[in-house]
């Protein structure tokens, strides 16, 4: 089997006396959509933050496409092709929608130490940005201020920003958070279209979404990986049912 895109080795993180990541080891294989589920406070977002470089783990190592990135800053990891979305929408509200995405293109193409020339008139930035916006259905909102978008549209914009980075791995931190039933459906459709184009690590609460999308699922409880496997295997796992799925699956 090909080398995994992402490999976590014995990752640990505590905040004071609270252990939020405990000896976490798992892999995201090339092309797969790997979901991490777990109850509130299981340490899902902390895990994503460690992978994307916003939080430094206490011990353990993170490998991204074969390189040890444990010591690299978030910008360096992003430059290697690690894109992420945030549970709490993280966009530039005073920038227009297209500028938000064009910035991601600019980061990928490089050379941001250009002091002259109007960036918003550059086709090399705007064209790829429009492609990404069209993919999430925001093309007709390109010139609106990002802060003026509806909640669902902001979630879609986050996805477009990540797409414009042409990621080698996409980390999705609860993309359905706060979305209504209809919006969730639209996002699931959008994600299933993207599936296979690049590997994704999906952290999600919404079980419908997870079981509809994931190739493999890891269950995280109290910072520990309880089990990993195919959706069917996880669904049937008595440990998982007892610890987590029980109430939702009757």
């Amino acid at each position: 089997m090909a080398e995994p895109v992402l490999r976590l080795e014995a990752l640990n993180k505590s905040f004071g006396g609270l252990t939020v990541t405990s000896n976490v080891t798992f892999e995201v294989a090339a092309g797969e959509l790997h979901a991490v589920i777990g109850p509130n406070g299981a340490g899902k977002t902390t895990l994503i933050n460690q992978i994307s470089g916003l939080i430094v783990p206490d011990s353990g190592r993170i490998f991204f496409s074969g390189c040890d990135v444990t010591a690299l800053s978030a910008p360096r990891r992003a430059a290697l092709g690690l894109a992420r979305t945030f549970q709490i929408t993280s966009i530039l509200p005073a920038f227009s929608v297209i500028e938000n995405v064009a910035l991601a293109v600019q980061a990928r193409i490089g050379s941001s130490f250009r002091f002259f020339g109007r960036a918003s008139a550059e086709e090399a930035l705007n064209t790829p940005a429009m492609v990404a916006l069209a993919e999430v259905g925001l093309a007709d909102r390109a010139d609106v201020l990002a802060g003026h978008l509806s909640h669902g549209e902001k979630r879609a914009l986050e996805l477009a920003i990540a797409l414009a980075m042409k990621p080698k791995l996409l980390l999705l931190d609860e993309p359905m958070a706060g979305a209504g039933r209809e919006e969730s459906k639209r996002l699931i459709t959008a994600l299933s279209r993207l599936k296979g184009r690049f590997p994704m690590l999906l952290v999600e609460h919404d079980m419908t979404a997870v079981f509809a999308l994931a190739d493999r699922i890891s269950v995280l409880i109290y910072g520990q990986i309880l089990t990993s496997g195919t959706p069917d295997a996880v669904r049937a796992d008595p440990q998982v049912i007892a610890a987590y799925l029980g109430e939702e699956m009757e």
Partner: protein
Amino acid sequence: MTQLSAPAPLPPYRDSILVHEILPIAIFLAFALLPVAAAFGAETYLLGLFMRVMIFAIAALGLDLLVGYGALISFGHAAFIGIGAYAVGILASHGIGEASISLPVALAAATLFAYLTGAICLRTRGVYFIMITLAFGQMAFFFASSLAPYGGDDGLTIHARNTIFGFSPFKYERLFYYIVLGCLAGCYLLCRALVVSRFGRVFRGARENATRMATLGFEIHRYQLAAYAISGALGGLAGFLLANATDFISPAYMSWQRSGELIIMIIFGGLGTLHGAIIGTLAFLLLGEWLSGLTEHWKMILGPLLVLIVLLARGGLLGLAAQVAAWWRRETIHSISDFTWTFGRLVRSLASSIGERLSFNGIKFAIQLFWSRIRG
């Protein structure tokens, strides 16, 4: 619904071509025509006064770049002016009065100082950034005060203005005036290009959402440091011109009161518009000049006036102009029966801007400083 520190919504004047395109042209036209008008009156006085306005406007532009576009409230900005001025003064005292040497030295010294101190200051945020830039500014001030060979506390008189390749354009007040105007126009255009460039986009983005910028792949410190150095260079240019205009250098150029004044100037005119910095400098210095002619206790008038402007006019004088213009437009379009509604809106917007301003500790701090001592 975002949990980001939501930035203030764009003020309405952003859209206005009148305020954004025509007004800057009008300002520069007025500066250009002033010597003609001055020829009929107290020419030396007026040229000197407006030259001072334009010189400080160059430094204010640099500061607006940081504060208005990057939310980096630098409180040691006078140091850059002082360093530029001292470069001229020290070289002149050793007999080097050639601008082709002193100007690059002034720019390089100010830029280097900005780069080195910025690398440290930019590790901090918010009020700590204000304090640490103030600390570096004070260090420069005390360093200049202790330079005994160059006048120490008393400052140093420059006996001959700089020459440019053997010519002495600074001797002729009018020519000097237009050179300063050219510098100001050049800096203004440079800053305008900068803020909409790729670089400027990243710099502005860092103010909006630093985490997002980091996860996009931008090491925002590098961009902020570059902007800080550019801003320092503008200060150095202002210092170079100031030393030549006053024939004198003094540690007072670097005092923290000067830094505070620069902040007040840009807030006064309207942050984040660039020409607002020029208008603010103009208004601040002219108001000071005019009021000091009226009464000995002119600071008693200037102080409350500035506080009122900062509190009531969102976006400074530019914002006030736009508010009045919008109110006037609405007034003419709607009938008089809408007056109460319009008036209510105006009062409400003023009230909300008071609230915003009060919550902006940096500005509050600047006002308190201003109260304590207006001019150094």
